[in-house]
């Protein structure tokens, strides 16, 4: 009834009312335009990077064909075969070693900050961890190379000697298990990268744990819950999305870490199971190492490798942010 009256009769009365709305929406429109533009810059840059990598890498991809995925050697400059069959697994295993160490430490640190630490310490720790995230990766790399690695390989040897039956920890017996086979390995690189990943993971997890609903916390406390009980039954179920999301953001960072890995590893193009043995690689390190000495085809091949890394990182981060966002809204706690 009202709608017919409005449509038929009040056409003229409606117009003056619209004017102030238009005026207000002009400001709004301007703001919206600016915001939309800023927002879309992200997509534009993304598309430009992806497009650029594809454009520059396509020549090499034409030469190698599917070999780019199956070939483990890297000799594009001499017209030889090249592919990421060794580099990619190394990249992933460095990242996985890093996450394997970083995730439990980050969960525990985030829980300590949100659940156990006194308030002063909480602020101090948060600030320190954020500071750790700001340390340039080159510094981590140098410190890792000269300070941590010589100490870490003792642990490598211990792992190889005692847990050598696990394929990851096995080292080639030809070299014996002298300390000399352990530096510059996937493991050492992974440990250094884990140090860089921990601040990011911890930040995300702390944020999410801190949002665990106070009502549920108090409910658990009022039932005689212990601190650990509250963590287990309220904080962790609520923060599950944050744990997954934080880990995946860390994974994204770990996959792309360049300079520290470049400093640590000695490049290898033979994929192997052992993470303790000398010789590792990563796409980012490969690009950093080869870039200055490559021919045109070589550079195109590196671009193609970069594209592979770009796509993987993009997928990981997209998955991560969607999980984190879901947990923020609390929907991850349903079911």
């Amino acid at each position: 009834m009202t709608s017919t009256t409005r449509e038929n009769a009040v056409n003229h009365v409606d117009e003056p009312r619209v004017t102030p709305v238009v005026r207000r929406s002009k400001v709004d429109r301007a703001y919206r335009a600016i915001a939309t533009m800023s927002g879309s810059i992200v997509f534009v840059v993304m598309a430009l990077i992806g497009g650029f990598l594809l454009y520059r890498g396509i020549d090499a991809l034409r030469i190698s064909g599917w070999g780019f995925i199956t070939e483990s050697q890297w000799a594009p400059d001499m017209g030889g075969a090249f592919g990421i069959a060794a580099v990619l697994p190394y990249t992933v295993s460095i990242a996985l070693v890093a996450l394997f160490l970083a995730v439990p430490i980050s969960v525990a640190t985030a829980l300590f900050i949100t659940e156990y630490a006194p308030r002063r310490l909480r602020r101090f720790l948060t600030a320190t961890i954020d500071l750790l995230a700001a340390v340039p990766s080159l510094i981590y790399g140098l410190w890792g190379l000269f300070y941590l690695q010589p100490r870490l390989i003792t642990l490598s040897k211990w792992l190889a000697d005692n847990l050598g039956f696990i394929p990851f920890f096995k080292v080639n017996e030809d070299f014996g298990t002298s300390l000399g086979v352990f530096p510059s390995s996937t493991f050492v690189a992974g440990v250094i990268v884990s140090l860089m990943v921990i601040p990011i993971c911890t930040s995300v997890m702390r944020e999410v744990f801190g949002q665990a609903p106070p009502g549920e916390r108090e409910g658990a406390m009022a039932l005689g819950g212990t601190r650990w009980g509250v963590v287990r039954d309220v904080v962790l179920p609520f923060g599950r999305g944050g744990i997954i999301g934080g880990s995946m953001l860390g994974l994204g960072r770990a996959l792309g870490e360049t300079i520290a890995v470049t400093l640590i590893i000695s490049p290898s193009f033979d994929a192997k199971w052992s993470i303790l043995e000398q010789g590792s690689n990563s796409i980012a390190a490969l690009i950093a190492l080869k870039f200055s000495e490559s021919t045109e085809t070589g550079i195109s091949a590196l671009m193609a490798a970069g594209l592979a890394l770009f796509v993987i990182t993009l997928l990981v981060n997209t998955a991560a942010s969607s999980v984190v966002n879901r947990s923020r809204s609390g929907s991850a706690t349903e079911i």
Partner: protein
Amino acid sequence: MTDLRITTPVPTVGSNVQTIDDGLHGAAGLTASNVACWFGTKKVLEGVSLDMAPGQVTALIGPSGCGKSTFLRTLNRMHELVPGATLGGEILINGVDIYRGAIPVTDVRRRIGMVFQKPNPFPAMTVAENVVSGLKLSGLKVTKSEREDLIESCLTKAGLWNEVKNRLGDPGRALSGGQQQRLCIARSLAVSPQVLLMDEPCSALDPTSTRRIEQTISEISESVTIVIVTHNMQQAQRVSDRCAFFLAAENEPGRIIEEGPTKDIFTNPRDSRTEDYVNGRFG
């Protein structure tokens, strides 16, 4: 002091009560003497002394901001969870000091349960898991059959069993608000508390749910002492045996103005401010 302990029969929470309790069960008396509370430097409560007799329902009434919820939260040591919150005075359960005594804080909170204003079932748990969550939280172990008995008996006591017996596996959040609140009551009862504190448990609920909860209160009050904060005068009259009227003058900490049998507070108050309040003239 320990002879204050009441030896009422074990509440019928299944056959497992002995195994999940430390021998201290049945409604317990709470005594607050000269309790004062601060948030930082702001004193919000002063000189509160109140006897909450075993097996009775005590209602705390008064206008908003008079400190009755704060007082309630001192009774099971929830007050101290607020950063900067401190208190003075003494609170005894069956004559034992809950702040300075030998009872661990987790035991205090288990023996003195709490139902909150807003229903807060654990969303990650099913209805059944919610009921027995207190056991897991406080590290108590029960066998599977004891667990099932406990779920049924607590839900029955909370007046919820018939509505949810076929939905025990549903998430707690799938229930309606009133059902969630009764689920929270069932959850509190599952750890066999001696006292149950209720902080405006019906303020977020519709009249029907409110009536169900009031029914539950009168049914369980024999085996558990109840202290309830309410803004609803009719509710205080319907459910409570005794009433304490709290009031805070402007920029003054809250105090108990008058305390006594509910009937007297409502029909024959000694203080004119009580009379004004219960008759709806302010607050």
